[in-house]
């Protein structure tokens, strides 16, 4: 009698175990699962310019000064694709309040000069204004300058139009004498999105 009771209990336990395992069976039957691992390497932006100074020397009013179209090379020394941007600044005279404002539209006036760039091998005479507002560098067809990493590069030239004269005497225009003017162009690279 005791043995029968024991048998019943064992059978019950086995039955409960089987029932408990039943919901797990379909899971065990599935093929596989995937784990996606993502990671990112650091992007490093580094551009270089092979020319960082343009000394024009003595300048006359209302006159155009140009570099060669391949005067300066921008090189992407970083490890990612970058978009190149450019901006200019007013020309200033050290120790003086005498300044030339940078034109926003290529036109010059008294104490207002213009700066432009030309992307090498672009169509001749295609110059784009440089203003005090940073903007993407573009080719004549509107394509922005984008440099892939690993020493990809682009060449460009500059053009500067001096302001109209401060004074005109007997038909000849002059600037105020002996002013050493200095302006900077900033070229930036930002990671292409």
């Amino acid at each position: 009698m005791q043995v029968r009771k024991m048998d019943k209990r064992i059978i019950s336990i086995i039955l409960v175990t089987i029932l408990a395992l039943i919901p797990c069976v379909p899971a065990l039957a599935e093929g596989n699962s995937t784990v996606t691992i993502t990671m990112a390497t650091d992007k490093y932006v580094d551009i270089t310019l092979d020319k960082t100074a343009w000394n024009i020397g003595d300048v006359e009013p209302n006159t155009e000064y140009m570099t060669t179209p391949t005067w300066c090379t921008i090189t992407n020394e970083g490890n990612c694709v970058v978009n190149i941007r450019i901006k200019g600044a007013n020309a200033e005279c050290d120790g003086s309040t005498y300044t030339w404002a940078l034109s926003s539209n290529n036109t010059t006036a008294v104490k207002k000069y213009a700066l432009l760039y030309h992307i090498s091998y672009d169509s001749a005479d295609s110059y784009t204004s440089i203003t005090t507002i940073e903007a993407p560098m573009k080719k004549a067809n509107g394509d922005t300058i984008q440099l892939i990493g690993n020493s990809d590069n682009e060449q460009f030239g500059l053009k500067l139009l001096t302001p109209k004269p401060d004074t005109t005497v007997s038909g000849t225009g002059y600037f105020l004498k002996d002013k050493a003017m200095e302006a900077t162009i900033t070229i930036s690279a930002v990671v292409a999105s």
Partner: protein
Amino acid sequence: MKTRTGSIALAIILILIPSLPALAQESDSETITITMTTKTVIEIELEPTNWDIGSIKPEELHTTGATYFTMTNNGNCDLHTYVKGNDVVWSDNPNYKWELSSNGSNGIGIYVLWCERTDYEPIEGLITAEENEFFSNFGMNGGNPKHFGLKLQAPQADYAGGFLAGGEMETTIIISGVAA
């Protein structure tokens, strides 16, 4: 030993963690400096540029009048101007000269030259072979010209009644300017 190695490795990793963001750089920029200079232009315009006295006899005084010449500063800077004269030379034989007086007195073979100005009050200044100050702080405004004249006294006669040289005699006066 294993625990210590693990701790050192963990420490190195922890030290490196703050450096990683610094290595990641999202933008970069470079600059080009443009330099240029404006010129100093000195340009003095004189009108007229000659004075034809005509016939001259020993010791005679001749004058243009104090406003005969007009000097204009056509440059882009204020000027200090200077004047100097030269000997008078006979066109047919440069060996015959009248030396420019250095003291306002004429003599045989020595003539005298003055400038006359009327800018504030009549001024008469001796012109010599040395550079002397003329108009100082001559403004760059071309619309503010200066006027002046010249006065010349001929030498004493070389011989009774006349000069040894007959014909054209010529000299030049140089007016120079330096930026003020």
